[in-house]
């Protein structure tokens, strides 16, 4: 909480923007956002949204340098506070060395952003998004810290596919990660199994992302997959979770219009040893969204999306097994640095975003949510 006030104080005093540089070598960039959540009927994501919560602050600062024409190095610190979710102190978002041999092949090593679907690597970069909240069926704010980046390496490149074939970009990666105890997954494991972990849960992961810029102007199609193996010892047992997540997505930009969609499945095989008893279970999750936006003028952009999440197929009629979200959103850019967002969510289903601690009297099947955000980027 103290760090949040420090960030805003520095911003108001003009200290942070002073450091903005766009020289060809060393660059410093950053952003800070303040959000507001106000919900009806249930507390969504965190406690206190029923009475309007401003306990939602994000900030990031990146420093990059290009010591040689083909080599870039850099680091980004990120601060994310969403009530008791998030780290509440600055963490390293990414820190890497990037050597591009040629357009077809490059290497990145260090802590590297994980490409998965359309928005995974940008889901914590608020200034680049129209939406205050991305489709929670796939980019859930309470779980996002687990997916953002990994320790390890990437290979990447782009190859043209002939005069009429467009071009294909690829990224493949492998490394390790940590499942935050204080994140959504950590809380869900505790709620469902009672396992108590002292530290974040270590995981190994690998995957790839392919993006085809088609010959049709502004149409991009892509596919990703991610494999994660999490194994951790708790005070009262162990957890072993193997997850496989394929994603398919597309994006079309034409003038003032933007449309995108994504489908993702997540198959999780979990083995929990709780007080010497084995509990084996499989979670098969399916999610998709479709979004559309329109740029009214140079400053104003409006949009809408529908997001759908389904847990345990066969019992889809249960509100607790699905989550549907219809969203209307608007963003206004005051200038190159300041912007504001407003958004309304019409939620149906309780499979995502609700925690027993935040809703001690139980959860109702519908929630209306208003979101507002103010941001500054340099």
């Amino acid at each position: 909480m103290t760090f949040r006030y420090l960030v805003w104080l520095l911003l108001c005093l003009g200290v942070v923007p002073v450091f903005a540089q766009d020289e060809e070598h060393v660059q410093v960039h950053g952003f800070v956002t303040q959000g507001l959540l106000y919900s009806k009927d249930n507390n969504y994501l965190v406690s206190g949204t029923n009475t309007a919560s401003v306990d939602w602050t994000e900030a990031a600062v990146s420093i990059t340098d290009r010591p040689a024409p083909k080599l870039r190095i850099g680091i980004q610190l990120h601060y994310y506070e969403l009530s008791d979710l998030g780290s509440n102190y600055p963490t390293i978002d990414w820190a890497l060395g990037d050597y591009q041999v040629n357009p077809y092949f490059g290497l990145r090593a260090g802590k590297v952003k994980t490409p998965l679907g359309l928005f995974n690597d940008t889901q914590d970069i608020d200034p680049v998004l129209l939406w205050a909240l991305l489709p929670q069926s796939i980019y859930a704010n309470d779980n996002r810290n687990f997916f953002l980046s990994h320790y390890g390496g990437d290979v990447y490149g782009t190859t043209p596919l002939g005069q009429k074939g467009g071009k294909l970009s690829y990224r493949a990666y492998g490394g390790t990660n940590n499942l935050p105890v204080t994140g959504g997954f950590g809380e869900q494991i505790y709620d469902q199994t009672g396992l108590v972990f002292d530290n974040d849960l270590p995981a190994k992961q690998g995957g790839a992302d392919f993006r085809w810029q088609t010959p049709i102007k502004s149409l991009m199609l892509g596919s990703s997959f991610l494999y994660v193996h999490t194994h951790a010892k708790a005070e009262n047992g162990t957890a072993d979770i193997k997850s496989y997540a394929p994603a398919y997505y597309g994006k079309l930009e034409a003038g003032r219009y933007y449309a995108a969609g994504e489908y993702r499945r997540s198959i999780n095989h979990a083995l929990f040893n709780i007080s010497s008893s084995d509990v084996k279970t499989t979670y098969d999750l399916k999610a998709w969204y479709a979004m559309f936006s329109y740029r009214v003028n140079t400053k104003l952009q409006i949009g809408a999306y529908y997001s759908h999440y389904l847990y345990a197929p066969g019992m889809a009629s249960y509100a607790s097994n699905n989550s549907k979200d219809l969203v209307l959103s608007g963003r206004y850019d005051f200038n190159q640095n300041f912007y504001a967002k407003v958004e309304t969510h019409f939620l149906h289903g309780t499979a995502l975003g609700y925690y027993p601690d935040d809703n001690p009297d139980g959860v109702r099947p519908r929630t209306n949510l208003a979101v507002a955000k103010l941001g500054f980027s340099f």
Partner: protein
Amino acid sequence: MKVRYLFIPLLLLCGAPSLRAQKIIIIANRSAKVEEIGISDLRGIFLGSSTRFKNGVTAVPVLLRSGPEHDDFLAEYVGKVDSSFRTVWRSLVFTGVASMPKNTDSDAAMVAYVASTPGAIGYVSKNSPHDNVTTVAVK
């Protein structure tokens, strides 16, 4: 009013971008040896998806910080308004996969920077002096 007069503003509207674009010229550092460029290649360089010219030389895009020439260039050659354009670059910068292009404050500064930077490519008003750089035709 005769019907044909209704077409005059329509024609003016349709022709406005290309008329505006004629006020902009693309310039490049002479060492890049680029005299013409495809519009999709130009768009790729200025959106960060391409890092080289077709001849293999590393491309260094250079921007005007703001102003009508900047807006006209983005509208005609990149197909975006300034806020959308900066969103694309912020996506690349804040995910650690690219560095922000150099911003210049005037046509003179743009020409000076492009002239002195190998692989640099930028844009200025057609009426601005642009010695020591190559004028690039867009196909």
